[in-house]
């Protein structure tokens, strides 16, 4: 589903974020991307949905070469990938409902379908009562779950979660992980970036360990 061949990303001023990474994530897998802060986890995820282009190397996502993807094909790639951003990227001047609705509009989903889908997703993340709230007024954990629901709006084949448990207490973190596993069971390939190694070992899933942009080890 996701393949990288000798991928490097060097930011201006010689900042090496990702260095010579080769990896293969199968369709339907659940994979952790772990490593300390600044290891290059976010950068690696951004390379997958072509928010950044690699300095060198090739990246295949769902059979498409992301590096040589034409601008006109970019929307299709992005629609097949749901992203939970590290900083959530929620619009703080819209309701929770409108934040999800934005995706439905971009996708051109009919109004009735989108209403049902938003309802179902908010229920799944336990936020149905908060649909008309402004994310600004929600707790960090609640905002996190809004971000998850939004990432699932497009029924993505791939879900990229960047620190989805970042500022949650351990119990809530486990809830979120359970949610992601469920999504994975329903067939979505899930990649979770986290610096929380304990969580990784507790979950017992495949993990790719990054350090200073390099792939250090793989555990199962």
């Amino acid at each position, binding site marked *: 589903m996701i393949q990288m061949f000798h991928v490097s990303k060097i930011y201006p001023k010689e900042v090496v974020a990702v260095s010579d990474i080769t990896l293969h994530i199968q369709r339907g897998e659940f994979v952790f991307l772990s490593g300390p802060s600044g290891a290059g986890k976010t950068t690696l995820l951004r390379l997958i949905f072509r928010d950044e282009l690699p300095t060198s190397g090739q990246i295949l996502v769902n059979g498409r070469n992301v590096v040589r993807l034409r601008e006109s094909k970019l*929307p*299709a790639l992005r629609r097949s990938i749901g992203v939970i951003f590290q900083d959530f990227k929620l619009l703080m001047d819209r309701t929770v409902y409108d934040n999800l609705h*934005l995706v439905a*509009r*971009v*996708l051109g989903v009919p109004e009735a379908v989108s209403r049902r889908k938003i309802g179902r997703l908010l229920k799944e993340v336990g936020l149905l009562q908060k649909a008309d709230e402004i994310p600004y007024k929600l707790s960090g954990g609640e905002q996190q779950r809004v971000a998850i629901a939004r990432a699932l709006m497009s029924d993505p084949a791939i879900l990229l979660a960047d620190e989805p448990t970042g500022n949650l207490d351990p119990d809530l973190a486990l809830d979120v992980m359970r949610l992601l596993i469920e999504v994975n069971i329903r067939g979505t390939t899930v990649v979770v970036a986290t610096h929380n190694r304990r969580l990784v070992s507790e979950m017992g899933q495949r993990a790719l360990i990054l350090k200073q942009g390099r792939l250090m080890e793989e555990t199962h």
Partner: protein
Amino acid sequence: MVWERLRHLLDETLLNFRRGGWGVVASIGAITVAFLVTGTFLLLTLNLGTVVAQWAEDFQVIVFLTDAITPEQVTLLRKRLEGELAVREVTYVSREEALADFRKQIRGQESLLEGLKTNPLPASFQLRIQKQHQTATALGQLAVSLRRMEGVEDVLYGQEWVDRLTSLVQVMKILGIVIGAVLGIASLFIVANTIRLAVYARAQEIEIMRLVGASRSYIQIPLILDGTLQGGLGAALALGMLYVLFRATLWQLGASAPLIFSGAELGRFLDVEYRMGIVGVGALLGAVGSLVAVRRFLRA
């Protein structure tokens, strides 16, 4: 799907409008002013142009005759006038006809003539001049030679005025084009700036839309429509104001100087083609302005 798209376009455009608030109002206002100024020039130039052309046609050379002139002298004079190379057409207007014409012109104010016991108006020959002789100097020479003729009281020719007015119209036309161009470019920048602010105000939303798979055109088209609408609306508003101003001015003139401004051919508003053209140009400027903004500020 198509319906959703259209709805999206409408929603987004209106959203931009609402979000834009005073910025959008100011933008439309500025465009309105620009088109009002330019439109005023256009209207004045067109009307003055028609009037001058009409005058040039009507008011060429008038040869006033002495009251003592005999019918034989009139016939003789007519022959001589018709013999002139520059003269295309000779029309005799008797004293009675002159008075009748005058009465017609001042319809409604015939009381002005009540005190008159005798007809004060002279008989005249009205000459139409060949196009190639229609210059102030040629007509001046003609007037001098006509004045020497028997039975001629005076010769009047408006060519100098016609020439002056023609060059005035010319100057106004050029001035109008220059001012129009300057204000047009200004309008373009104003729209570009308003759209730039709209892009900034919605930067986060636009980023999210791109990240969840919105195409470039999906994001750009509503913004460009927004600018187009601002331009078109500004121009249409200017057109409306221009019409009101125009009517008010005519009414004012008609009340203060009925003798001059009673003619029906005087005071024509812009034709449909011009009106559509003005709104079209406004919309086009808006479109180009927003396109520039979108191209510059929506990179990546």
